[in-house]
């Protein structure tokens, strides 16, 4: 198992280095085969480990730490490179390597015409390596290494089409906003080291209960040690997982190619925050206030992002806000103590959200790079395979299922989260439950809205500039034929195969694994905090709670059906009626505008002031330039005194003599 762990993690790195440096010298096909091959090997090695932890097919696995080498030893602050694999990591391993391998494969088709393919594939593999380092970290600093590594890869991939100013802006925004979170993460690591004198995760988790109740000084306040440490670490998680306040980078990150959105901004990287909270769950359990913060932020994000998702027109942005919202579910699940449910939703979400993104990519591919859903319609008949894949994804995310019989992936995980929040019984738990339930309604609405706008109705293709470009017609020239004579083509096999595999995941991942993820303490093997009482309470919630998710799902579907199939004039009337509310939501609650006015503009303004008025106007003016001026003035005076005239020297001598006599006499 040791060798296979090393291979899983380092093969993608090797592929990234060889492919990235070889680039054009090796050629497209070689680099693509190399990176994709490496990922499929990693994936093939990961599944047996995961199945081993499940104990299926007679396989077995146990927690392992594979030392790699020393990293830093500075006094008592020491941390090494090491790969830790336990149940929690194994779950992440299969998610990362599976989605990554499929995305690599998908990109063969999707990036077919791009001139820079080797670079793209090298970045994808580099990302996978960094993500694997993150989830196999045995100490907080290595986790931070992976954390920043995925940030780098995300930056590079969002800005992959680097000629576009919007892509560059989005890339920098993603990196810088993440760094705000990282500030919290770093302070959290420093604090943890200060308190526990170690950065080793198992040692911290073991010692955490002992620190319960202790207090610590922070920024001049005395606070509960565990609460402040966990909140600082959680700020890091908020940045990476795009939670309320630090979420603004995620929708903009859709500037990257769609396979990137599927891999990084849906299935893996953005879930790193959830992973971190689960990894440190025994620590968070000693910090009730911090958990309250986690619950509140998660629930608020899940509601907030869902509202925005209902109004967006860009197909990728709808899914991006949906991701943001689903991450909120995971966080409040962790916040109420249902870490298993959080991880389960992470697991199922990875499949159906990657599926939705890749499906959207297939639609965009078919529609000549048009991303605006207003210009779609009736695609069901033209790209049926993509349609059915997206359908599976939608059924999964909206949580379609029949209690005790069968459900799509999201049915199991989302229901478990809502039940856990209700079962938790506190005020915050109830808040999370209702926010989550309402968000589920919105989820169902925007998901079906997406489906109806894209696949049903009459074609509205000719109004799209991209399509006009393709068929060389204006809407007037096309007349009655709103397709403009455009023929959407189904995607190639390299794109359809990943869709097919993920469809299976979206259908069966919930049904197959719910017993282990939610109900089995043995499965987790101590890798997360397992709250047995909560799980009992979760199963004992009233029937109406269990049916809530299904009820709101059906309601959302019905509203979407009425508004986008039955009577398509409803949305317009609604917007007319609630102009202000719609504008507020459509403009994403004005977060971007607010941040721009409060942070970005003042930073540049201050920089200019400090430079021109501070450095030049004050320091230089009165410092070196002032000194030079004073010397020049002084020497001008001295020059005049040394005139060479005997009389003036005699005068000075006389004055000096008088002064000396006066001094002596006094």
């Amino acid at each position, binding site marked *: 198992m040791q060798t296979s762990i090393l291979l899983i993690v380092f093969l993608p790195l090797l592929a990234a280095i060889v492919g990235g440096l070889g680039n054009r010298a090796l050629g497209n096909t070689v680099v693509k085969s190399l990176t994709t091959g490496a990922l499929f090997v990693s994936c093939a090695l990961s599944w047996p480990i995961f199945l081993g932890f499940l104990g299926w097919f007679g396989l077995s696995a146990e927690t392992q730490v594979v030392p790699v080498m020393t*990293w*830093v*030893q*500075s*006094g008592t*602050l020491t941390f090494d490179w090491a790969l830790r694999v336990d149940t929690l990591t194994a779950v992440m391993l299969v998610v990362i390597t599976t989605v990554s391998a499929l995305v690599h494969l998908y990109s063969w088709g999707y990036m077919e015409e791009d001139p820079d393919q080797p670079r793209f594939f090298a970045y994808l593999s580099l990302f996978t390596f960094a993500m694997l380092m993150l989830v196999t970290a045995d100490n907080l*600093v290595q986790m*931070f290494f992976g954390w*920043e*590594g995925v940030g780098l890869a995300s*930056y590079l991939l969002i*800005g992959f089409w*680097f*000629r576009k100013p919007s892509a560059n802006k989005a*890339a920098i925004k993603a*990196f*810088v906003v993440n*760094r705000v979170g990282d*500030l919290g993460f770093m*302070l959290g*690591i*420093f*604090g943890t*080291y*200060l308190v526990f004198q170690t950065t080793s995760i198992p040692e911290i988790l073991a010692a955490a*209960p*002992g620190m319960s*109740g*202790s*207090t*610590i000084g*922070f*920024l001049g306040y*005395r*606070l*509960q040690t565990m609460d402040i440490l966990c909140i600082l670490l959680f700020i890091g998680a908020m940045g990476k997982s795009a939670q309320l306040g630090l979420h603004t980078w995620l929708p903009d990150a859709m500037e990257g190619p769609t396979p990137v959105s599927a891999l990084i901004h849906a299935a893996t990287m953005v879930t790193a925050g959830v992973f971190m909270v689960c990894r440190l769950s025994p620590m*968070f*359990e*000693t910090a*009730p*206030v911090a*958990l*309250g913060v986690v619950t509140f932020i998660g629930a608020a994000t899940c509601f907030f992002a869902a509202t925005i998702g209902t109004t967006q027109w860009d197909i990728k942005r709808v899914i991006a806000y949906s991701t943001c919202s689903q991450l909120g579910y995971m966080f409040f699940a962790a916040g109420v*103590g249902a870490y298993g449910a959080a991880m389960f939703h992470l697991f199922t979400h990875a499949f159906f959200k990657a599926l939705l993104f890749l499906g959207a990519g297939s639609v965009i591919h078919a529609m000549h790079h048009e991303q605006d859903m207003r210009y779609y319609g009736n695609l069901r008949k033209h790209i049926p395979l993509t349609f059915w894949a997206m359908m599976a994804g939608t059924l999964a995310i909206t949580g379609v299922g029949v209690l005790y019989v069968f459900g799509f992936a999201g049915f199991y995980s989302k229901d478990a989260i809502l039940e856990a929040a209700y079962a*938790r019984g*506190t005020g915050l738990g109830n808040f999370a439950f209702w926010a989550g339930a309402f968000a589920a309604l919105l989820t169902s609405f925007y998901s079906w809205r997406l489906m109806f706008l894209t696949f049903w109705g009459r074609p509205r293709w000719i109004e799209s500039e991209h399509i006009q470009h393709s068929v060389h017609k204006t809407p007037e020239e096309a007349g009655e034929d709103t397709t403009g004579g455009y023929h959407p083509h189904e995607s190639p096999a390299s794109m359809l195969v990943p869709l097919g595999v993920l469809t299976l995941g979206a259908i069966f991942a919930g049904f197959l694994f719910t017993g282990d993820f939610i109900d089995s303490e043995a499965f987790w093997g101590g890798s997360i905090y397992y*709250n047995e009482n*909560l799980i009992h*309470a979760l199963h004992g919630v009233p029937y109406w709670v269990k049916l809530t998710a299904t009820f709101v799902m059906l309601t959302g579907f019905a509203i979407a059906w009425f508004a986008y199939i039955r009577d398509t004039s409803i949305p317009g009337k609604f917007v007319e009626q609630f102009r202000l509310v719609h504008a507020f939501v459509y403009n994403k609650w004005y977060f971007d505008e607010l941040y721009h006015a409060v942070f970005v503009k003042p*930073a*540049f303004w*201050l*920089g200019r002031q*400090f430079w021109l008025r*501070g*450095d*030049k106007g004050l320091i230089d003016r009165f*410092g*070196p330039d002032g000194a*030079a001026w004073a010397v020049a003035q002084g020497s001008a005076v001295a020059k005049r005194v040394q005139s060479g005239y005997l009389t003036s020297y005699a005068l000075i001598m006389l004055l000096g003599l008088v002064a000396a006599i006066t001094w002596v006499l006094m």
Partner: protein
Amino acid sequence: MGGFPILTAMLAVPLIAAIACFFVEAKPARVIALAATLANLALGVLLWANYDIGGAQWQFQEEANLFAGFQYKLGIDGIALLLIILSVFLMPICILASWESIQKRVGEFMAAFLVMETLMIGVFAAQDLFLFYIFFEAGLIPMYLIIGIWGGADRIYASYKFFLYTLLGSVLMLIAMLWMVNQAGTTDIPTLMQYDFAPGAQTWLWLAFFASFAVKMPMWPVHTWLPDAHVQAPTAGSVILAGVLLKMGGYGFIRFSLPMFPEASAQFAWLVFALSMIAVVLTSLIALVQEDMKKLIAYSSVAHMAIVTVGLFAFNVQGLEGAMMVMLGHGLVSGALFLCVGVIYDRLHTREIDRYGGLSINMPKYALFFMLFTMASIGLPGTSNFVGEFLALAGIYQVSSWVTLVCTTGIILGAAYMLYLYWRVAFGIQKNEDAAAMSDLNVREWAILAPIAAAVLWMGVYPESFLAPMRKDIAALEARVARAAPEGDAQLAAGEPRRQAANAVAAPEHHGEDEGDH
């Protein structure tokens, strides 16, 4: 090493080569300079290989009495060793970087550089107070000439500013040194490092040294010479300035201020913290609005060096080791960034950021190196600067969470200004035709960037090679200053354990959140 005076040899090789350079034409001068610096690099590697980690504190000692108690005394510990290695590593790179860009008075230029090398090594190897002073101050002269003769359009102003600033502090330091020698009766640095000056005297001695080191560092508000000097200096001059000369300030704090005046250091720690906090925020914001590449990197240097100063005055192992690692890492990375600027400056003869754009299209190899060094400057884990900054900030956190919070904002602002720079230079469209026509790295440029890239990654992934030689010296220093170490603001206090399992569901009366008792 037997009796071979390796340190003297390292001082002599460049000096002899410098004299030779005066008498020859441009071409042989370049070759002589390169050969001499490579020879010194080889000696440096030998020095490192023969340095006995965990052995005596002072190794490779040499001693010769001169006049009136003034001694020619050399010797190094791990700290000095690493800085010497940094110097000899950067020198051949500087010579190569000037290979084509310097066309007038080549012999004199090479001579100035070689003299510079002798003086830099001398600063780190000197064990006699006055010998140190001579090396420390004489270093100004070649740099003054390099900026003043081979610099850009505004070189005279920049060179005077550089000279005035640095000289101002040195005068005070010399007076302090004279008093110290008079008081302690010796000029031997290792002895002085163990000598306990009266706390009252320490105060003004510390301030006198601080005046000199703060300018060299440079700390806010005596930093304004640096952007001008960098902008006007030729590429190689900037590399040495950022790579080694700035480190003399930090070295001065480690060698003199902290061990000789521990009480005063503790007393003035707040001053250092305050100036450093201001520097991090202010200079980072200033870097954000620069239109001149070299100025931007120069301002970023001030911000990075502020992390060094807070680390040094954290009075603990992590802070000190972190500060040293930042010095080494910054020496490599900022040097490399100046080289990157030099590469495109040689082609287009402008430092204005807006004149470039889209370079990753026509110069992909260049873009890769530039990206690596940009990321290293931002402090991405896996690169040299992360290790240093992380340790330094971890060290200062044990003293003050406020200082840490303010200084850590540097990682956000640093990312902003460096990525903004990278976007405008390497990404975007090729809006300027002449910039779009520039050719990618040639073999010579490849040879100057690749070694630094390797070193940056090495320091980031396996910093143990660099931490090990100085571990004992840092420990000794920490033991020396421990008596004055300031108390941290954390003050961890045990308390009544809160009920376990914040999420216990069984307890009906009240739950976790209600216990938010601060």
